[in-house]
């Protein structure tokens, strides 16, 4: 414990030194939703110098999923021949005419814990077409690819996926290419880096001159990641580093990458808050197109309209903090979420609401 505290104090001293040297606010964006939750749960913000500001990024899969995608899922849930298989957090995201949770009364929405469960659902329900709501970054994409291949090999034709898979690096590029951004450095996601390797962030450092540091999810690892970034600021450098060497390599998991590439190809796609980003989403390759729900049902994905007043998009880009949204803590609370950032357990608004400021008595 003492050893841990020593390392924390060391990292904190780097943060203090950088803030002093820079003489202005330093904004570090944590890209991953799991980082956001850990930062709040461990009270990390309260231990940082005032001038070091953490911005929450577009790293929660449910949150970045565009409203248009949600509306397609809801549309499919209305069909009697469909069985929707989804990860838990998605069921509460509101869209046109309710959420999957309200549709669940029709018993054609099933919560699954893995893509394998979704495929099993198809095997168990031969009279229904199981549509797997496949969201997530490079972390969950390999698992989706595996079941698509399994379905193809076993000719399980009543199975398809609605791919909402997204790529992290194009989103980071989009953020830095925007005019309004205030991002000085990135705390890069640990889980995604296990798959894509920390080398994938090199282009951000090279093209935009922003420090990128990959960190794990324990409080010590996060603080050390922030300390590493601050050391770079003090030394006037912008480098690519991983402080998560136990599990993240430069190349990443090449087997998982290969499986993704076998099934998917990058395509332009919509993100909540960020709009359309070039080659930022994964769509099934032509040889697997019969498992593509969009093709099967002849649906074209169009950008959806965010609920009026909901500022999740700006929260996801680190432009505002949740309490700056007029709905936060008023009409948008965990019991009755308006936007996905309040729905997801990894959402910035939910974390802020749960661990952040005390809710004042009305």
């Amino acid at each position: 414990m003492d050893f841990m505290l020593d390392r924390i104090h060391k990292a904190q001293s780097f943060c203090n030194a950088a803030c002093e040297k820079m003489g202005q606010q330093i904004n570090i964006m944590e890209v991953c939703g799991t980082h956001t939750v850990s930062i709040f749960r461990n009270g990390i913000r309260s231990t940082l110098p005032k001038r070091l500001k953490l911005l929450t990024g577009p790293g929660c899969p449910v949150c970045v999923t565009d409203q248009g995608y949600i509306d397609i899922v809801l549309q499919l849930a209305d069909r009697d021949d469909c069985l929707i298989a989804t990860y838990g957090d998605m069921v509460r995201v509101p869209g046109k005419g309710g959420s999957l949770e309200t549709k669940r009364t029709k018993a054609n929405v099933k919560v699954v814990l893995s893509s394998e469960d979704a495929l099993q659902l198809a095997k168990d329900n031969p009279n229904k077409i199981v549509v797997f709501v496949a969201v997530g970054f490079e972390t969950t994409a390999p698992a989706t690819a595996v079941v698509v291949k399994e379905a193809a090999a076993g000719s399980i034709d009543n199975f398809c996926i609605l791919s909402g898979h997204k790529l992290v690096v194009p989103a980071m590029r989009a953020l830095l290419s925007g005019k309004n951004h205030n991002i000085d450095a990135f705390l890069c996601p640990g889980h995604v880096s296990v798959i894509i390797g920390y080398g994938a962030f090199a282009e951000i450092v090279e093209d935009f001159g922003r420090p990128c540091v990959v960190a794990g999810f324990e409080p010590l690892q996060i603080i050390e990641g922030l300390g590493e970034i601050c050391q770079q600021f003090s030394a006037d450098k912008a480098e690519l580093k991983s402080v998560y060497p136990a599990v993240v390599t430069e190349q990443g998991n090449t087997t998982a990458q290969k499986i993704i590439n076998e099934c998917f190809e990058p395509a332009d796609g919509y993100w909540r808050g960020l709009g359309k980003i070039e080659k930022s989403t994964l769509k099934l390759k032509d040889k697997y197109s019969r498992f593509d729900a969009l093709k099967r049902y002849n649906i074209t994905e169009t950008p959806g309209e965010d609920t009026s007043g909901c500022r999740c998009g700006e929260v996801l880009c680190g432009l505002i903090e949740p309490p700056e949204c007029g709905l936060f803590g008023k009409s948008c609370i965990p019991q009755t979420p308006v936007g996905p950032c309040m729905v997801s357990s990894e959402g910035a608004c939910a974390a802020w609401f749960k661990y952040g400021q005390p809710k004042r008595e009305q």
Partner: protein
Amino acid sequence: MKTTKNDRILLAHGGGGQLTDELIRHHILPKLKNDTLAELGDSAKLNVASKSLCFTTDSYVVKPLFFNGGDIGKLSVCGTINDLAVAGSKPVALALSLIIEEGFEFKLLDKILSSISQAAKQNSVNIVTGDIKTVEAGAADKIFINTAGIGVKLAGVDLGFEKIATGDKIIINGTIGDHGLTIISQREGIKFQSQLQSDCAGLAGLTCELLKNTSGVNPVRNKTPEASVSRLTGISNGVKFMRDPTRGGLAATLNEISKGSGLSIEIREADVPVSPVVQAAANMLGFDVLTIANEGKFVAIVSPESADDCLNICKNHPLGKEASIIGEVVQTHDAPTVELITKIGGKRIVQMPYGRELPRIC
């Protein structure tokens, strides 16, 4: 007709006729028999030499019925006993009502009745009256149990929110989160192998010992000089308030105490006992262990002078070996809040959990 010919509950077993009688005589009485129950009257006659009684009821619909560390039977006895225990009373009698779905297997019913019998014996309390209803298949999920309990208030013990004062210490009698995570780990669709075990236990033995020994009624073991002085001069009872942190976990109970007393609470993460297997499971599922249900724990608010005494009494009891002083009652500045000092020295709010719908944990 003998019930032994049936291996399942029939609707007629709740019909009040011969089958009901046989169910009571062949299955209930052999397990739960005592003089009061054996009279099989419309009401139980109790001789209680006290004017001050506690009375409570609770219904149990846990799924699955059998889980590592207990079952619905044990839970239905312990849960009601604990509600009486934390109110400062000694449980003396329980009522037991069974609502059974047609087709429920007798061997499972017998197993549940054995657990009820064992739990009642362990806690020195009799089941003195009861009821059985059967419902059509599909109208209930296997078996639901209601228990009601009467307890005799311990002499000289007066617990309440109004007794709580700044500086009071907060004690918990052991690890948190064990019950809730055990149930979740055995739920359909999530099932995972683990060494998780519910903490389901009746606490009256420990609470009675604690209350008797810190309220000046009886001499104390392991007493410290300071504690005995306060008792001799009768400054105040050591224990001021108790509650069992069931649904909503420690987070809900501490928030209730904070709100009820109008005072803030500060707890230290490092002092809150959590078993490594529970912590690992909570991390995996993304749960905050502070919000997970317990069924064999109580939180006691005690005067600072008596805190060490109380802790020792707990530690000397089988159900309090891992007891810990987890924090203090502190001055309220704005509104009463519960704050956690994290292991890394950060601070965050512990909110009243908003009740992620975890189905039927008790």
